[in-house]
């Protein structure tokens, strides 16, 4: 123990001296470590507060752990008996079970049980086994709901989601922090190669270099730990207070942040130091000036007759081009990440504004129009949705398209010779039954961006409402009035082995082996922004659907979507009203999905502001990188400026050298900023909109490509300003030094070691 104490004490003292002595060199690292710690604090504090919110909401709104609905008399008796017989057991699974009796309008009686478990960790499964399972012997399907209170106490549902999300985000932030610190450390190593070369000549190996660097960064981390915590707490208090939620502090946050900080520090130093330790010391020592940053020319410029400072610095900039491009790319990458943050914020806001699927209605037969209309009229309900769909491939059907219609959907189509005018075939679509109420729902609630008249499907023969996207991406080029051919399976000529084939290969075989009946369809309307999914919508009237799909189009399941900003009280009333309306019919059931509760918690998280704070923190890194690198770069150019001065360059011309360089930096940074901003946002778009939807994650949401133009302009302006100022401010220091020298007569050292 004493040994460890001594070890820590010696290393921290040594690191403290080094950091204090070279504090100017480390200013940038202070800022960077502060930002990194802010990442960690922000995420940790917000997760702790969110979990506390889940607890409060669950405890405020739910008294029971399990609700069992729609039990018939026999099931009620079974459950009641089980409860009765076990009531005197010392270790029974439940604390209390309360029953409610419902008599619906047609005289049918159903029972509801509200269960409070004794010990949530062990009793949940025991209750399922001993109390719920015996009721399943009866054919009647009852509905078991585990409430958010159960989820919270058991650590499942939203609580588990929140914990998983926390560790994933912390891992992501750690990677980002490592990249940031590594970028800065690389800059430092690049400029201090000479010094490291001298250390290595004197016997410093990887271990020594690594240890020194890690302890120095840990020292910096220690110094910024408390300030970053205080700033984070203040910002989190602001975030949560703005949505009326109390900030919740958990002491374990300190340990978590310290741990992730340690990981980030160790890994960010390890790789650059490993890379350097493999270098020959001489290759580092020769880099005393900026010669290691020069891109070899092999050809000289025609310098004769050229002027200071424009030509001089233009040539210099060209020779330092690789260094400049790397620097600009590194710095602007962080502004591109800021834009990605804003994009994610936009996605969060899109999600928050989307109606919530809160209730699912089900029935053994068709849910009638009147009930749907009455439910639509309930306060807080936005719209109802139902669908009857069937994949065309199950029927061995396909559609034939013109070359223009399917030219960009190569991954989903196969060539076909069935009709020369329609050389492309696809079975990546599903038949969807349409009726007037459903079309009214779509049109009145503006659910899709539709081109053409969707009602033409009902009024004109062989007319289809078709979508053009697969996995959130426009793949087909359809226009209202276009013709397509529906090839419906008619007979079999030969046999195919579908087990070994992928979807396209299977269709190719089907076209060869099967016979089809061809019907020309007119596209009545096109849906341009259908949700993610692997199939096109092929919308047809109910009767046509029943013919093609060979199944009845009935409204057996209806989803009820509620307003995104509906209050808890509104939802409670809506729940009562919908259940009351549904009780008019035999076999109609209502299931509450809990979407509204999730949305309430999401509002309480104030995610848009939190994402904004993280994005701004990332943006702060951009000027850090600029100024850190350029300060070191120009410090090494001071001897060059002295030489120019000794050969007759005036102060104004030297200023011009810096200004020209700054102007180049500013101009180049515009292009690199634009390229990186669009590339990064494009990657986010592809990831969230395409990759995630193709994996079935968040498949219901379709995001538009988004770059906030004011933010983009701000980023460009910041990059330009940083580029220009990081080149021109060093001249102010140089001039101040000249002035001091002139005043005091003392020549100051120009090196940066």
């Amino acid at each position: 123990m004493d040994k460890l104490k001594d070890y820590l004490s010696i290393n921290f003292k040594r690191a403290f001296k080094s950091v204090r002595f070279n504090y100017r060199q480390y200013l940038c690292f202070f800022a960077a470590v502060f930002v990194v710690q802010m990442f960690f604090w922000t995420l940790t504090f917000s997760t702790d507060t969110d979990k506390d919110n889940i607890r409060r909401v669950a405890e405020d709104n739910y008294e029971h752990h399990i609700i069992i609905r729609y039990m018939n008399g026999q099931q009620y008796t079974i459950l009641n008996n089980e409860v009765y017989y076990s009531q005197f057991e010392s270790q029974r699974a439940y604390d209390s079970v309360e029953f409610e009796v419902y008599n619906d309008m047609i005289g049918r009686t159903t029972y509801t049980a509200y269960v409070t478990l004794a010990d949530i960790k062990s009793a949940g499964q025991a209750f399922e086994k001993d109390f719920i399972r015996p009721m399943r012997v009866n054919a009647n399907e009852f509905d078991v709901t585990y409430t958010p209170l159960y989820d919270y106490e058991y650590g499942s549902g939203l609580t588990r989601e929140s914990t998983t999300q926390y560790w994933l985000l912390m891992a992501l932030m750690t990677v980002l922090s490592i990249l940031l610190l590594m970028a800065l450390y690389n800059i430092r190593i690049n400029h201090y190669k000479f010094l490291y070369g001298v250390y290595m000549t004197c016997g410093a190996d990887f271990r020594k270099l690594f240890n020194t660097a890690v302890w120095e960064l840990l020292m910096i981390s220690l110094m910024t730990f408390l300030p970053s915590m205080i700033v984070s707490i203040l910002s989190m208090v602001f975030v949560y207070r703005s949505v009326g939620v109390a900030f919740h502090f958990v002491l374990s946050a300190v340990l978590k942040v310290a741990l992730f900080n340690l990981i980030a520090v160790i890994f960010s130093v390890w790789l650059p130091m490993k890379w350097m330790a493999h270098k020959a010391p001489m290759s580092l020592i020769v880099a005393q000036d900026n010669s290691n940053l020069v891109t070899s020319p092999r050809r000289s410029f025609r310098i004769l007759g050229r002027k200071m400072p424009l030509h001089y610095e233009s040539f210099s900039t060209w020779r330092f081009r690789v260094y400049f491009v790397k620097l600009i790319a590194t710095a602007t990458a962080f502004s591109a990440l800021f834009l990605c943050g804003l994009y994610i914020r936009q996605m969060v806001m899109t999600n928050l504004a989307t109606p919530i699927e809160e209730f699912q209605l089900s029935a053994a037969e068709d849910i009638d129009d009147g009930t749907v209309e009455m439910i639509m009229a309930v306060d807080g309900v936005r719209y109802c949705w139902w669908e009857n769909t069937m994949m065309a491939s199950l029927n061995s059907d396909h559609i034939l398209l013109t070359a223009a219609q399917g030219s960009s959907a190569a991954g989903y189509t196969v060539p076909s010779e069935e009709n020369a005018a329609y050389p492309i075939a696809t079975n990546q679509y599903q038949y969807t039954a349409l009726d007037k109420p459903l079309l009214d729902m779509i049109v009145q609630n503006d659910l899709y961006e539709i081109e053409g008249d969707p009602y033409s499907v009902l009024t004109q023969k062989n007319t289809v409402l078709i979508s053009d996207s697969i996995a959130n991406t426009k793949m087909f080029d359809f226009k209202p009035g276009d013709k397509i051919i529906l090839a419906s399976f008619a007979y079999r000529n030969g046999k195919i082995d579908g087990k070994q084939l992928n979807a396209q290969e299977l269709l190719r075989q089907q076209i060869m082996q099967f016979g089809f009946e061809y019907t020309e369809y007119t596209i009545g309307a096109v849906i341009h922004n259908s949700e993610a999914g692997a199939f096109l919508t092929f919308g047809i009237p109910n009767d046509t659907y029943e013919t093609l799909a060979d199944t009845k189009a009935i409204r057996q399941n209806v989803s009820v979507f509620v307003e995104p900003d509906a209050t808890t009280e509104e939802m409670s009333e809506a729940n009562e009203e919908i259940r009351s309306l549904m009780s008019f019919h035999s076999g109609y059931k209502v299931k509450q999905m809990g979407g509204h509760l999730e949305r309430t918690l999401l509002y309480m998280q104030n995610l848009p502001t939190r994402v904004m704070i993280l994005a701004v923190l990332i943006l702060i890194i951009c000027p850090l990188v600029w100024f850190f690198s350029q300060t070191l770069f120009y410090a090494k150019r001071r001897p060059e400026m002295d030489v120019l001065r000794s050969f007759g360059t005036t102060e104004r011309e030297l200023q011009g050298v810096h200004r020209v360089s700054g102007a180049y930096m500013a101009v180049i940074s515009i292009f690199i900023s634009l390229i990186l901003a669009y590339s990064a946002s494009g990657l986010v778009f592809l990831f969230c909109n395409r990759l995630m939807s193709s994996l079935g994650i968040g498949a219901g949401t379709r995001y538009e490509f988004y770059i906030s133009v004011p933010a983009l302009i701000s980023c460009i302006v910041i990059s330009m300003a940083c580029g220009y100022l990081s080149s021109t401010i060093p001249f102010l220091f140089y001039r101040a030094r000249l002035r001091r020298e002139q005043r005091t007569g003392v020549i100051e050292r120009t090196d940066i070691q």
Partner: protein
Amino acid sequence: MIDNLNKKEDERRVILEVTDVIKQYRQYDAVVTAVNRASFKIYEGEFVAIIGSSGSGKSTLLHICAGLDKPNAGEIAIRGQKITDMSPDELARFRGNFVGMVFQTHNLIPQFTALENILIPTTMCNKPEYKYEENLKKLVATLNIGERLHHLPSELSGGQQQRVAIARALINLPLLVFADEPTGNLDRKNADEVLELLLETKRVIGQTLVMVTHDLSIARRADRILKMDNGVLSPMMPSDLAKWGS
């Protein structure tokens, strides 16, 4: 005899006149006098060596004479123009037009090739009456660096770097060349070569050369030797050189 000598000297044109120059540095609480009331004249076409032990103030004196540093007191005139009265920018332009400087460390600019480094002074002090191409050819031939012109400084040897630095100092055809231990970082063979080249270019172009050195074999070849000792400058006879060296 002495009167005659003085008369003969005065007939020659003075190119550098240093009068009562004092340079002091403050080091913590102590004041160090690097140059203590130095006064001397240098005539056109002369080769003057300033010798002295390390830290004696000879480089400081050279930098002051070249206008790279300011004295605390005293005057310096080059061709009758008092450089101590000039503004920093006037002085910079003056240096560009009339003074060439060869540093002990070559101080080549890393991002420019040898050829570009040589031509850099022309970008700021272009003398239209001069034909730089001819001068460049002459310098390149004399300094034997023709094959290395398109290489970066980091790709050149120490001797080659110093030759490029000399060519750079001479490209503007300065009247007065200051060299601060130009052979200090070179081996004997390279040092002799560089000295020969400096003397050769001095002869070809007709410049005045003031060189700081502690290499006695170089000092012996000077027209005159000035000795610096703890900031105090004094003339030195060649006969004293052997004694000083020992």
